[in-house]
């Protein structure tokens, strides 16, 4: 069963919102867990679409990359960017 794109986007955004009190950055596999039936590649397509819509942004430590809601998180402000 292929994912319903719009529904999957909402699931991801809702998940990020629901966690926003404790954390703003998520590993890729936090999202694959939301869709146990789907292949990782499908989930990635949804995330890429959300990135292109400017709703989700990447966060990188250089060695590790995470995903988060655009504008959320603590470090962005701290860096004055």
């Amino acid at each position: 069963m292929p994912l319903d794109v719009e529904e999957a986007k909402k699931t991801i955004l809702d998940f990020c919102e629901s966690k926003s009190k404790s954390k703003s950055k998520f590993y890729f596999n936090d999202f694959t867990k939301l869709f146990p039936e789907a292949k990782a590649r499908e989930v990635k397509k949804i995330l890429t679409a959300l990135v292109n819509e400017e709703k989700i942004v990447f966060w990188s430590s250089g060695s590790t990359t995470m995903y988060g809601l655009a504008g959320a998180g603590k470090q962005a402000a701290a860096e004055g960017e």
Partner: protein
Amino acid sequence: MAKHKTPLLDQLESGPWPSFVSDIKQEAESRAKNEKGLDYQIPADCPEDLLGVLELSFSDGETHWKHGGIVGVFGYGGGVIGRYCDQPEQFPGVAHFHTIRVAQPAGKFYTTKFLRDICDLWELRGSGLTNMHGATGDIVLLGTQTPQLEEIFFELTHNLNNDLGGSGSNLRTPAACMGKSRCEYACYDSQELCYNLTQEYQDELHRPAFPYKFKFKFDACPNGCVAAIARSDLSFLGTWRDNIRVDQEAVAAYVGGEIAPNAGAHAGRDWGKFDIVKEVVDLCPSKAISYEDGKLAINDKECVRCMHCINTMPRALRIGEDTGCSILCGAKAPILDGPQMGSLLVPFIEVNKDDDYQAIKDVVEGVWDWWMEEGKNRERIGETMKRLGFAALAKAAGVPIDARQVQEPRHNPYIFWKAEEVEGGWERSIDDFRKRHQR
């Protein structure tokens, strides 16, 4: 007049080896003069401030850089590393000083046109400082500010026809040795395979979806000039299955002292006359070589293709003609459980451009699917392999089990048999058992 005094760094201007301090000073001077009348898009004196902050580290023994997260170009999860100086008032030119990784061409051959274009771009929009190259292989552009990132990416893709490299939990920029371009040892076209897989997996390179970083490196022979076996999650090492080609006349020329052994690599010292028995026959790790009556004989069935005899007599011995590559999996630096070398996954695979390297891609994708499913966050595939076992990896990669995959068989008999492997399965009746044994 230098902006900051750098008495410690100045001491690195003497001595024969090229001084990066002198080089940065010349860049600082060139930007101060600005003979071309450029409208520098980041502070013109950033090289001076870089020397300043480095001098501070040299005197206080601590770094003054912070790293940071949300910089990058739109839609990419890698290629840019955010950097900030922790003394921005003292060194405003490098207060924001991000790194950009630029994908290098396979084998690092260049035209001056391309390099000059990079220089022009980076002089205007960045610090003018680079690394040629980073440890993974990218061209590293060292130091620019956030508003320039998209502009640099736009010019790089539109004018230089070149993309960014990888960083983060991505496929990192793959790297190859110079291969067939200028090396007679190349068992396969390492550059073409590197280029092909780089293009095929652009999405994996730019949009992170792996548990952690993943590296490909391509060495066209077992000498390993790009250190694939030590440094890449999947290493592709050239090898062959048939016989080493022997030119007996050239062997005689080595023995007679007409040709210097090892291509002349030992010319700086008098090691005495070349002794083929001592220097080749006796050093063969599998004792597959003999030399009798002026003839060199190789028992190719016993040869482990270590390259020593070929390296020592390159004009007399050549690699075989039935060539391809071995694939090893799981190399990484020590964090956490200790360093790992790649483990031999596929002893031999044809490197076939005609079918677009399909057999190799099948292995790659099998390995990735498994790791993406099973790997923990920040776990390299070498660690996943150790946790779940080599056999699980081989199965996921669709690779047949082969005695060549181990140095020796296991030391413990704790074999986790599965029910379906055992005759009659595991379902047993206690009543039947009791018919044969009393309580």
